[in-house]
């Protein structure tokens, strides 16, 4: 290219501006093209709608017994804790990492010593707060439980060994960081619980 050639500076600026605008438009178009594909993988309207409350009859649940129901695809446990079982919570208070459930998930009306509305009836999402396995109930005591000599009953996660007491509070030095989640629930009379609906005015 000859050095004495004259440049049309106006045209050159126009070209640069056009190229810049074109690149911006190109990137914007590429991003806009991605959006529908990325968004198509989010939960569908159908998946979002599948969270209806579940009604459970607990009239035949005797002290010391436990039942599991499905709510939003997850296991929800209902345990009828005997007075003796409730007594163990005082002993485990010092051994759990979040005794007052400060950083754990529960409705305000369950942020208490027993983590429940009525002290005896425990309702909890049976999903370990570590990586989402469902822990196993182990209500035997001491060595017989196969966990340790001081075991007073609770839940053991088979995946990574986290343990919870009878209020779903996680023991110290385990992989799970938080206590088991308590779902919103309310009583419908004495014998029925509706899981997934808040207790109002509590």
């Amino acid at each position: 290219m000859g050095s004495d050639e004259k440049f049309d500076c106006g045209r050159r600026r126009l070209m640069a501006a056009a190229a810049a605008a074109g690149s911006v438009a190109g990137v914007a178009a590429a991003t806009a093209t991605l959006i529908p594909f990325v968004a198509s993988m989010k939960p569908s309207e159908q998946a979002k709608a599948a969270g209806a409350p579940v009604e459970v009859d607990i009239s035949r649940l005797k002290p010391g017994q436990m039942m599991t129901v499905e709510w939003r695809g997850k296991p929800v446990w209902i345990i009828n804790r005997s007075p003796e079982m409730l007594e163990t919570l005082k002993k485990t208070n010092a051994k759990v990492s979040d005794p007052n459930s400060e950083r754990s998930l529960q409705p305000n009306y369950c942020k208490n010593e027993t983590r429940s509305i009525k002290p005896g009836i425990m309702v909890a999402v049976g999903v370990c707060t570590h990586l989402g396995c469902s822990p196993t109930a182990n209500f035997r005591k001491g060595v017989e439980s196969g966990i340790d000599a001081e075991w007073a009953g609770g839940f053991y996660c088979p995946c990574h060994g986290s343990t919870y007491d009878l209020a779903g509070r996680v023991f110290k030095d385990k992989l799970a960081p938080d206590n088991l989640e308590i779902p919103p629930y309310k009583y419908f009379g004495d014998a029925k619980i509706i899981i997934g609906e808040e207790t109002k005015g509590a």
Partner: protein
Amino acid sequence: MSIANTKLGGLVAWIDERTPLTATWKSATRLAGYYAPKNVTFWYLFGTLAIVVLVSQLITGIFLTMHYKPNTSLNESGIPLAFASVEYIMRDVPWGWLIRYLHSTGASVLLILVYLHMFRSILFSVYQKPRELTWLLGMAIFIGLAAQTFVGYLMPWGQLSFWAAQVIINAFSQLPFLGQDFTIWLRGDYVVSDATLNRFFSFHVIAFPAALLWLLIHHVPHTVKDIRYFLAFLIVCVAVIFFRPEAGGYFLEYNNFTQANPLQTPQHIAPLWYFTSYYSILRSITYPLFSIDAKLWGVLGMFASMLIFALLPWLDKSSGKTIRQKGPIFKLALALFVVAFAALSYLGTVPTDPQRLLLAQICTFIYFAFFLLMPIYSRMDKPRSNEGRGAR
């Protein structure tokens, strides 16, 4: 013979006049113009065998897709369709059992070959300059294969399929900021469900194989063709497929012959053998550090243990080109690493207890020390000079 060759040459010339066939082959793959090293040995065989198995996986996969149904809704007997269709392949499809066992055994055999291939790469320091990019492409293939086997494992919709997906997807929720949203996006639901199975099916049969093939074309510099080794390898594979297709629960876990139950985790869960070392590392980190939960450390440790191999070209400062030329410290470190890897792999298959936890923690330490201390000990080492081969 020569006439056939001339005719073939004529055909290639005819095509080359019309499309850039030969030029594409030469530019797109390195198979055509890359000289193989002179010292190709037995250890160089595993990469080629892995390609053979990968092709077998593609072919068996095509036939399995003809009968498999990625659908979690229940049939009239109350069994998820996906689980039932795998049982149907095993029992009712003519030769279906063979195709399925070829595919499930093939996955494990492929991972065995990939691990041996990686081990030989460390033995011969093949990742050193100027082959860093080949090594990184190879690592991308390793991670891609891990992802491919992971999504493939969900297909039978058995108990371990379900819970393995549950645990590993939840592991991503630990990543800071977008972790939780990312897991919901990845599942397409708030729990592992039909949406998850369908997208994993799509990844398993289209997206990941396409990506793996593309990576493979750019990674493979040469192949080894030795019919004796191929025959020996095939005999071993066929023996496993016919006599021990489940390999005592290591290739196909017994709990996975039970249909998925989202409400109950099996008493003992473990991933398949090729992931158990990383799984052990996840379980062994139980201390919070620098005000970060043990949970996040465990997850970071698990991902780091798989990705750290990619750093080898920059960690290995030794000048020896093969293990023979390397000094005693490197040999000892590599031996310790192999023992730690094997021990972690075993520990990941069994339930944990305090003694095993301690052992896993020691092995996790050795695992990371092998990599992170390598710049120090590989420099300290006195390489054995070997008549101009090792010395530069």
